[in-house]
């Protein structure tokens, strides 16, 4: 086992401080409407989020940046920003990217973070989580498929952790949901390999609308 495998686990630890515990990306709207009340409904929601949102959005961005060229970076970054229509989702992605960068700086040192900042400035890249994550991954020995799979896993399972608190559900129910999601994450990762920047889209209209509705909810647990 290579130490980079452990690094990947660390980056996707739910305690890795990027603020994902404050983001529901529209899920809270579903919870407040009692559309997610148990593990089965949570699983269905997470599968939609995974296959209809992350696969056709951030996962493609991560893959494109890791596999792309210097020339394609700016376009991938512009698409990463343009495809996020709901303001809270866009702001959440930017906040998580900035927090990811700060954490990289604290564990890898200033030079590593400065290099990421240099690339982002040179290519006019905004600090979306997918963008910063992919650029950091390029500084490791972690391969694109592993990086994308880890990204799919952590972005989806963080919603499960948040739902356990918000619905609420038991910890064991949350773990059962995550176990049930594992084959889906593998399937999603294989699907992303077949996709390119041309395939980026907003498939999960309901989830995006829920994120927009969330902007106008007065009492809420999450920022998005």
């Amino acid at each position, binding site marked *: 086992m290579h130490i980079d495998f452990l690094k990947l686990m660390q980056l996707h630890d739910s305690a890795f401080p990027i603020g994902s515990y404050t983001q529901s990306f529209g899920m809270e709207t579903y919870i407040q409407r009692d559309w997610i009340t148990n593990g089965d409904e949570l699983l269905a929601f997470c599968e939609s989020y995974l296959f209809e949102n992350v696969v056709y959005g951030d996962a493609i961005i991560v893959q494109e940046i890791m596999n792309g060229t210097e020339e394609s970076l700016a376009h991938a970054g512009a698409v990463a920003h*343009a*495809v996020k229509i709901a303001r809270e989702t866009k702001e959440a992605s930017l906040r998580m990217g900035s927090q990811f960068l700060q954490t990289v700086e604290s564990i890898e040192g200033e030079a590593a973070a400065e290099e990421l900042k240099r690339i982002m400035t040179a290519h006019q890249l905004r600090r979306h989580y997918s963008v910063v994550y992919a650029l950091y991954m390029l500084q490791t020995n972690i391969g694109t498929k592993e990086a994308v799979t880890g990204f799919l896993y952590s972005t989806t399972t963080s919603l499960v952790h948040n739902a356990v608190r918000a619905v609420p559900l038991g910890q064991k129910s949350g773990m059962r949901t995550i176990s049930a999601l594992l084959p889906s994450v593998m399937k999603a990762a294989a699907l992303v390999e077949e996709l390119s920047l041309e395939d980026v889209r907003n498939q999960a209209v309901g989830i995006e609308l829920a994120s927009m509705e969330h902007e106008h909810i007065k009492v809420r647990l999450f920022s998005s």
Partner: protein
Amino acid sequence: MGPDTSLALQGKLDIRFARKSGRTILKDAYQSPPLKVSRVLYPENSARAVAYLVETSGGMVSGDTYTYRIHLEENADVTLIPQSAVKVYPQTKAQDTLQEFTVDVENGAVLVLQPDTLIPYKASSFTSRTTVRMSGEASVIWGEILTPGRRERREAWEYQKLDTSFTLWINQELKCLDRLQLEPDKSHPHHIGIMDGCDYYASFWAAGAAAEEADAGALNRHLLIPEGTRAAVTKPEDNIIHMRILSSDLIALKKLWQQAAAYFMQ
């Protein structure tokens, strides 16, 4: 041997509006069947022109390509209204049906497109690509209304593929990319997270000068969202307002879209 495309239509409509002596005029128009533009009307005042986009064939068939090119010169003020819903007939030749809008809007110009519905018939396949390139000093109101097909004939969600995209550039910068591809056989749109059990979907865009002063919360409170319809307003950029609507009531959805448009047209 390739598919027979002898009956497929390559419709083109290239229209250019300008402001002349305080009046918005149709400066140039190139049209090839089945696309046409009506004569320009002035129901409110001579500065604001209204024209209908006419499609004379009654619907799109496999292999049809309709290309719209719309250009508004400085300070032109135009409302475009499709004369009828876009009906997409079954795919018979393994060929997609394509509709493309390329829109350029210069400084101070105002463009409103009032969308009609898109009705994909059983076994149809439709792609729509809209690219709006505008000055930040211009205003554009745009939208799209999707139906599941001929629901009253119990022909809902029986199309093969619906792929629509809206790309918005302001001052040469990519601002929004909104693309939706539905393939009911692969993933039913009623699923949670996609259309959440609703049959109709609409998007509303207000971009540029018109959206700068607008507040998403104020517009959201202004809208009368009926029971059973979901809608919400967001402001993804400082000069873009967007609303999504999901409903199983087409009339309610259309009224809501018009309410939002009227908010900006006051």
